[in-house]
Structure formats: C-alpha cells, structure tokens
C-alpha cells in the first residue's frame, strides 16, 4: 500500500515537473503576471528597445529595423515580437535563453556580437526567464527583418565561431564574496544587463573588448564617437564626481558642468539608466567606485 503511494507520489511529481516544463515552453501559455512585470524591469535595464525598436521612425515596439553602424558594416536589429513568422513567436524559452547565453539563433547559427550576448551570458536564469515572460506579452508585429549590410569576410557566420573562440567567455555572473551585496548588485547590472562595457571599454580592430581596461573608455564607439572612461580615476574618469553627480547622470543625463549628454548616451539615459530604481542606481555607483581607477584619457572626436 505504501509502495503504491510512493510510486504514485513520484509519478505525480514527475508529471507535475514535465507539465511545468511544457507550460514554460508553450508559446501560448501566459507566465505569471509578476514574472512579466519583473521581466519588464530586466528589459529596461538590458536596453533591448534601443536596438530593437525603431524609435526614430516611430516603429512598433520591438519590431526591429534599427540600423547599428559598426566598423564591420551596418546591422539591423531584428524583430523580436512574438510574431511566429517574422519575429520570435516560434521560439521556445530554451531557444531564447540559449541566444542570450551562447549567442546562437534558433537554427543554431552564431549570432553577430553586435548583439551583446557577451554580456547577457552573465544573466541569471531567473532574469532570463522573466525577460522571456515579458517579451511574450508584447504585441506581435509581422515586419520582416532587414538584411544586415555587412560585407565579406565579416558576413561569414563561420568567422563568428573564431571570434567567439577568441573573445567570448560564456558563463553566469559570479558574485565576489569579498564585496558587499550592493556592489555585487551593481556589478551584475553593469556587466550582465546594461552591458555598459560594450561601449565604455576599448575595442580592438577585430571588435573584441580589451577586458584588462574594462570601462576605461573607448575611442571606437557607436556613431564613431569617443566613449568616456567611467572608472574612478580622478583626472580621466569619474573619480571627482560626487554621488549626486553620478545619480543625476544616470537619471537625467546631466554632467557636473550642467551639460546634458547627447547621442546614444542620451538614449541610454532615456530607456535604461533613467529607469533604474533608487537602490539599483546606488548599486551601480557603488560598483563603479569599487573598480580600480584606470588612467586613460579618451581623446575627443577630432573635427570635422
């Protein structure tokens, strides 16, 4: 009698487990509302809309079409609405998480690192799943993707394998036990979600980031602009900025000179850092201040 009960219990749990997995992967099943709302916050911090929503032309949310000019060509952010034909509606949660973690598409193709899987790989499972839950709630839009305008040899996907072998280390974020919870939270936001280093760290000619000089500025930024050093160096970085200065920068894009950042950073402030909770903004600041100051003067863009 007990054995039967045990077997029944085990079978029940197995069945429940299988059902739960199927529920997560089924495209039509809605995730819990709290997962989607948590996912929206992850979405804001990861800044997805900046590359996947054509805001300049008032395009629909996440329907793609945003040109991203790089030294290797112009990439167009794809449609990531749940449209089954033109978006990622046919994807499973596992497909999505694999794209974030490993930089691979649903068909297994290597994704171009203009998609910062190099940072998203560090996302926690929970954040990745919550983000997926939110993306499923976005209206499906049947807009086909624009083909990337990338010439030979950069358009060879096999080349991406080599690039990843050299420059990509997959793996979840690992907190530093020697640092406070607040600094670790800030590190996670900067490294895994908001992917600040993708712009603020120097890129080499092959488009890899110089991890030894993380966040110390980049002469080869988007829009061909130089990107500032945000390590706490007093002369070439943010060492002299007060907490209020840094908070106002993140929230409103205001610098200590009373200036307001332009270009892509203004967009980052509007879509991402301006949406940080108070605690998370403090965490980001604590993390940046915990970094070793790197003396690196990023040259301003030469005219004209």
């Amino acid at each position, binding site marked *: 009698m007990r054995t039967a009960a045990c077997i029944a219990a085990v079978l029940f749990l197995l069945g429940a487990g299988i059902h739960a997995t199927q529920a997560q992967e089924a495209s039509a099943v809605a995730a819990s509302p709290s997962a989607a709302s948590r996912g929206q916050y992850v979405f804001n911090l990861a800044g997805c809309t900046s590359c996947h929503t054509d805001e300049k032309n008032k395009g629909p949310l996440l329907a793609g079409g945003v040109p991203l000019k790089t030294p290797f060509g112009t990439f167009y952010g794809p449609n990531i609405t749940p449209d089954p034909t033109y978006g990622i509606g046919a994807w499973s949660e596992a497909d999505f998480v694999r794209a974030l973690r490993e930089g691979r598409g649903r068909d297994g193709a290597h994704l171009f690192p203009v998609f910062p899987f190099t940072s998203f790989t560090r996302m926690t499972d929970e954040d990745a799943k919550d983000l997926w839950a939110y993306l499923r709630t976005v209206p499906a839009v049947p807009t086909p993707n624009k083909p990337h305008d990338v010439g030979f040899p950069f358009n060879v996907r096999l080349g991406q394998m080599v690039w990843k072998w050299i420059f990509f280390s997959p793996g979840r974020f690992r907190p530093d036990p020697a640092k406070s919870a607040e600094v670790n939270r800030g590190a996670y936001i900067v490294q895994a979600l908001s992917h600040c280093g993708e712009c603020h760290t120097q890129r080499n000619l092959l488009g890899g980031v110089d991890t030894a000089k993380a966040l110390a500025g980049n002469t080869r930024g988007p829009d061909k602009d130089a990107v500032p050093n945000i390590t706490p160096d007093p002369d070439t970085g943010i060492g002299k900025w007060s907490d209020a200065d840094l908070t106002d920068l993140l929230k*409103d894009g*205001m610098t200590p000179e009373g200036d307001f*950042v332009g270009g892509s950073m*203004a967009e980052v402030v509007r879509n991402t850092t301006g949406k940080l909770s108070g605690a998370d903004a403090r965490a980001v600041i604590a993390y940046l201040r915990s970094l070793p100051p790197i003396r690196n003067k990023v040259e301003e863009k030469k005219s004209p």
Partner: protein
Amino acid sequence: MNQGWRLGAAAAGVAVLLGVAVVAEAQNAPAQITQRQEAMKGQGAAVRTLTQMVRGEQPWNQQAARQAATTINNTAKMIPSLFPQGTGAEAGVKTAALPAIWQNKADFDAKAKTLEEESAKLMAANDEAAVKAQFPNVGKACGGCHENYRAKQQ
C-alpha cells in the same frame, strides 16, 4: 535705353552684394559657432547654479534661481537662429552640431521651443519647492534635443 542700362547695372550691383553677403556669412561660420558654444556654456552654468540649489549644496536664493532660469529662457529663444545653414561640420571648425539639425530643422526648432516653455515655467516658479518640481522638466528639454542633434562629445 538709359533705363535698360541702369536696370542692368542695378541688377549686377545687387548680385554682387548678394554674393558678398553669402561669402560673408560663410566666412562668419566659425564666429557663429563660437558664439553659440559660449551660449551653451552659459546654459550649463545656469543649470549648475540651479542644481546646486536644488541639491542644497548652495543656499536657496530666489533671485539667483530666477536669473538662472531667465538665462536659460533667453538662450532658448535664440537657439533656432544660432544654427544657420553652413554652420555644421562643413564649416571646417570643431562643432558638436549634427547634420540632423538641418535635415530636421522644424523638429529642432520645436525642441528649442519646448526648452523655452519649460524654462518660462521655471522663471514663474515662486518658491524652492516649485523650482525643485519644475527643474527636471528643463533638464529633460535639454537632453531631448541633445539626443538626436548633438554629437556625444565635442
């Protein structure tokens, strides 16, 4: 015959004057660029004054706050005319003004108008609390224009 000759001469004179004016304007571009950069620096100084008061880093001074808001408002009114044709990168002088300004002049001017309106509200703010409440809207107006029309670093 007399009139024809004079008409021709007058027309030629006008053409010469117009040509001189065009050349003069093009030659003036560096000066105009410097002038507007100074105006923008003035904006920054006014914003800094207000920021310090809003943060409590400087003692509250209603008159100074109103003066700073007035500076921002006066410059905002001038912005459309501070960016005439020919004063972009083509002037050959260092400027953060993006070509998008002249491709979307109507939108650019509209954004300047927004700054004018928000700073006018700031001028009308009667006490510290009102200034604190309205100041972020001024900041948003600054950033809203810079996002598309100004290079990230000059």
